[in-house]
């Protein structure tokens, strides 16, 4: 079993968004995840970005659809035609 190729802080930072978005291949993920425990600054940066992303997502999803709209859409889905 061999260790993954090391990755620089700069290269890791350039891949931060792709990493958080789950858009990297397994080898690159392994290189980043080998780097983070050895680099406190990168680990802090990645954690902070992950927390901010989660917070922004939660805030943007904090929306309630108006009941009247929901009823109109349910009527559309029942009949396939405009109820109004």
């Amino acid at each position, binding site marked *: 079993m061999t260790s993954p190729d090391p990755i620089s802080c700069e290269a890791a930072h350039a891949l931060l*968004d792709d990493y958080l978005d789950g858009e990297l291949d397994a080898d690159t993920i392994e290189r980043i995840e080998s780097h983070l425990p050895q680099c406190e600054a990168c680990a802090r*940066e990645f954690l902070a970005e992950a*927390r901010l*992303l989660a*917070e922004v997502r939660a805030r943007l999803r904090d929306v309630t659809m108006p009941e009247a709209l929901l009823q109109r859409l*349910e009527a*559309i*889905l029942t*009949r396939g035609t*405009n109820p109004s």
Partner: protein
Amino acid sequence: MDVAVDEMEGQACRESATAEATAIEPLLRPLLPQAYGVALRLTRNPADADDLLQEACFLAIRGFGTFEHSASFRPWFYRILHNAFHTSFRKRRREGVPVELDAPMAPTLDTDGKLTPTRDPADALVGGLTTAAVVAALDSLPDEFREACTLYLIEDLSYEEVAHVLDIPIGTVRSRLHRGRKLLQQRLRALAADEGIGDPPPAGRTP
């Protein structure tokens, strides 16, 4: 005679629409709450979001016969919603605030190439964010960034699915998401500074 034929055709159309609605309902209904959130952030207006989501549902029911069931339903529906937005709401759209897109955001590296952030802007923001601030920050982005970020952040579509919805290359999606998120963070930091939360935006960067 013609009246009778028209009536029969009308009845056939209604039955067809009802059948399509019945078939699409279990796929579409679970999407509606978040689809409303997407419509709201695209239109930035509750009344327009209502109209857009209703129109998208009609179009999806009418076009459901063209949906390939081996494909994922979510990007198929969101492409309809996005196209309806551009077709019907283009004239009503407000443009985002112009920004300087090349504003640097990368942390500094020391002579050994180690990451040495002078502060932790993301961490300073978390905990002080309000829904209103996040919405205001997203709404202020230029359209191409706002659309990509809305689909990604609210609906959690993959880069490939966002590319399908927006009909752009996946590399363009990546670029818009990365730059859009950096801009979003800048705006959030500026809004937080206005509220006395965290640090103000650094000099030379666009708030």
